[in-house]
C-alpha cells in the first residue's frame, strides 16, 4: 500500500494532523498538513501521471490540477484512475473513489502494466526511515528482523512504486534524527544506488527519491550517486537546526532558499474547494 505520510504508525498521525507549523510568515493558522500539501503540489509542475495514497498526496494532486499541472492524473493503488470523489477518500481502497472515475483496473494491470510498466511520472511515498540516498524503510524498527522492536506495515506497493516510477516524492511529517538516518534498520524500497550495488535483479527504471518535503523544508537529489541536499527551508527555520535533526552529515545547497509560504489562493482552494469538510486538513 502506498504509505501516506501519516500511515506508518498510527499513533504519530493523529497528533500531527492537528499540529500547526512554526512558520510565522505563513500565519499561525496554516497547518502542517497544509504546508506539506502546498509544497508537494508545487513540485508536481510538469508531471502528468502520479501514483499516490489518500490524504495529503491526493490533496496535493488536486491542488496541482487547479494550479501548476491542470492535466495531471492520479492513479490509486486500488486501480482507480481519474477519480472524482464527492468527498475526501478515507483510504486508497475507499469505494467513494469509484463512482464517476475514469477507470478501475484489476491489480494485475496496476502492478504489472502501470507500475512495473513504467507509466508513472511521480510516486508519492512515506516511510519510517530514509537515508541520504533516498532508500526507504517501511518494514520494521530494530536490529532483529525476526523479532523487531516495532513491526511496521511493510512494503505494500512501495517497492514497485520506487522501482517503476520516474521519480519518487517523499513526504515526511517530522524531520528528526530517528527518521532521517545514517543507516536504515531495513531497506524496504531501495533507490537506484542501492539497487546498483546488489548482485542480481533488474535495475529500477527511475531516479528514486528526487524530492523530500518535510515540516522543516525541502531536499532534492537527481543523480544515482547524489545525496539528498537541503535546497530550501520554510520561513523561520534555521538551516543549522535541519542539519542537527538529520542523522547523517546533511549537504546544504550553497543556493539555499526560503520557501514561499502558501498563498491565499492555494489555501482558499484547499480549504474551500478541495477539503471543505476539513477531513484531512484538521
Amino acid at each position, binding site marked *: *500500500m502506498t504509505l*501516506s505520510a501519516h*500511515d506508518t504508525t*498510527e499513533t504519530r498521525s493523529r497528533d500531527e494532523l492537528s499540529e500547526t507549523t512554526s512558520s510565522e510568515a505563513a500565519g499561525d493558522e496554516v497547518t502542517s498538513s497544509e504546508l506539506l500539501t502546498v509544497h508537494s503540489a508545487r513540485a508536481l509542475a510538469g508531471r502528468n501521471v502520479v501514483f499516490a495514497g*489518500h*490524504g495529503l498526496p491526493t490533496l496535493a494532486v488536486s491542488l496541482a490540477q487547479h494550479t501548476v499541472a491542470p492535466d495531471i492524473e492520479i492513479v490509486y*493503488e*486500488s*486501480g*482507480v484512475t481519474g477519480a472524482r470523489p464527492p468527498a475526501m477518500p*478515507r*483510504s486508497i*481502497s*475507499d*469505494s467513494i*473513489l*469509484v*463512482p*464517476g472515475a475514469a477507470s*478501475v483496473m*484489476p*491489480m*494485475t494491470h496496476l*502492478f*504489472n502494466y502501470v*507500475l*512495473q510498466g513504467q507509466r508513472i511520472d511521480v510516486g508519492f511515498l512515506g516511510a519510517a526511515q530514509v537515508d541520504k540516498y533516498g*532508500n526507504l524503510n517501511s518494514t520494521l524498527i530494530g536490529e532483529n*528482523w525476526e*523479532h*523487531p*522492536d*516495532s*513491526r*511496521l*506495515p*511493510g*512494503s*505494500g*506497493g*512501495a*517497492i*514497485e512504486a*520506487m*522501482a*517503476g516510477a520516474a521519480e519518487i516524492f517523499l513526504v515526511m511529517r517530522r524531520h528528526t534524527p530517528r527518521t532521517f538516518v545514517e543507516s536504515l534498520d*531495513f*531497506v*524496504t*524500497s*531501495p533507490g537506484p544506488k*542501492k*539497487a546498483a*550495488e*546488489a548482485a*542480481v*535483479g*533488474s*535495475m*529500477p527504471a527511475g531516479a528514486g527519491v528526487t524530492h523530500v518535503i518535510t515540516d522543516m523544508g525541502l531536499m532534492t537529489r537527481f543523480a544515482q550517486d547524489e545525496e539528498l541536499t537541503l535546497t530550501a527551508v520554510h520561513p523561520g527555520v534555521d538551516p543549522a537546526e535541519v542539519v542537527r535533526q538529520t542523522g547523517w552529515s546533511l549537504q546544504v545547497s550553497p543556493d539555499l532558499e526560503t520557501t514561499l509560504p502558501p498563498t491565499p489562493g492555494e489555501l482558499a482552494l484547499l480549504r474551500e474547494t478541495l477539503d471543505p469538510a476539513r477531513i484531512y486538513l484538521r
Partner: protein
Amino acid sequence: MDKTMGLRQAISTYLSDGDTVALEGFGHIVPVAAAHEIIRQGFTDLVLARMSCDVIVDQMLGANCLKGLISSFIANSSAGSLHELRRRIEKSDPEPLWFDEYSHGGMVARYQAGASKLPFQPIASYRGSDLAAKNPRIRSVPDPYGGSDIHVVPALNPDLTIIHAQRADIHGNVQAWGMLGIQTEAAFAGRRLIVTVEEIVDEAVVRSDPNRTIVPAHVVDAVVAVPRGSHPHSVQGYYDRDDEFSRQWSALARDAAAVQNWLEINIRGTSDHDEFLATLGSDHFERMAIHDAYSTPVNYGGRA
C-alpha cells in the same frame, strides 16, 4: 449445475486443518463472513494468504486458526495497527508465526503464476531490497536475452480460495465491479474455490453483461449467498464500509484478552452470519447506506 450451498457446509466441505487458504479482497468485497465461519468451526494450523491485511487477520490469529501468513501489507488499512499480529511477530506472543513476506507486486506475481500453472513469475522491482535478502523464496533466473538476472517469486496455489462478490448465478458465474483487487487470479490459483455473494441472481441478469463476469462457473466449487458478507468492508452499490469498527478494533486489540472476549461473544457466541449481524442492531446498516449511481447500459446486440 447448481453449486449453491450454505456457508457452514461450504467451509466444512472444502477446508481442512493445515490448508493454505487465500482470502482476497482489497478493502472492498472481502469475504469477512467466511473468515468468521472458519473461526466458528475451529480450524487450526492454517496458512492465510492475504495481500492487504485487516481485522479478519487479527481475528483469525486471536482464534488460533493460523500457523502462518503470506502477505505484503500488515497494517489495518489506515485505521492503525493489527496488534494481535504485531504481538505474534514482535514477541512470539502467544507463539511464533511463520511470515512469508512480499510486496504487493510480488503477491500479484505469485497469484498470477499460480493461476497460470507456471512455477514462478519474474518481477523487476526487488533488486537491492532487504525483502529479497530476507525471504529465501525470492530467487532469480538468468535472462537468456542478455539482460541482467531477474528476480522471480514462486507460484501461489492455495488449497482453498475464498472471494466475495456482488452477485453470481447458481452455476457460479461471478460478477463484481468497483475495486477488483487480485480476486480473479486468486480464484484461478486456488485448488478449490468458494465464492460468497451479496445475492444470487437469475442467470439472465448475469448473461445480459458477460464482460462483467470476473470468474466463470467452471472454476467455482460453491456459491454461497451471504448478504452483508463483507462488513465492515464495503460492497460497491450495496453498502459502505464501517470505519468506526475498524478503528475500534485497532484500539480493542491492544489487549489480547479483549480480543478473546470479542471473539467469544461475537463469533463463537453466534451460530452464523445472520446472528452476528443481528448483534449489530437493526439500525446498524443505516449508517452504511449508499446513494444509487447506475451504469449506462451498453448494447451487446449482434446478428439476430
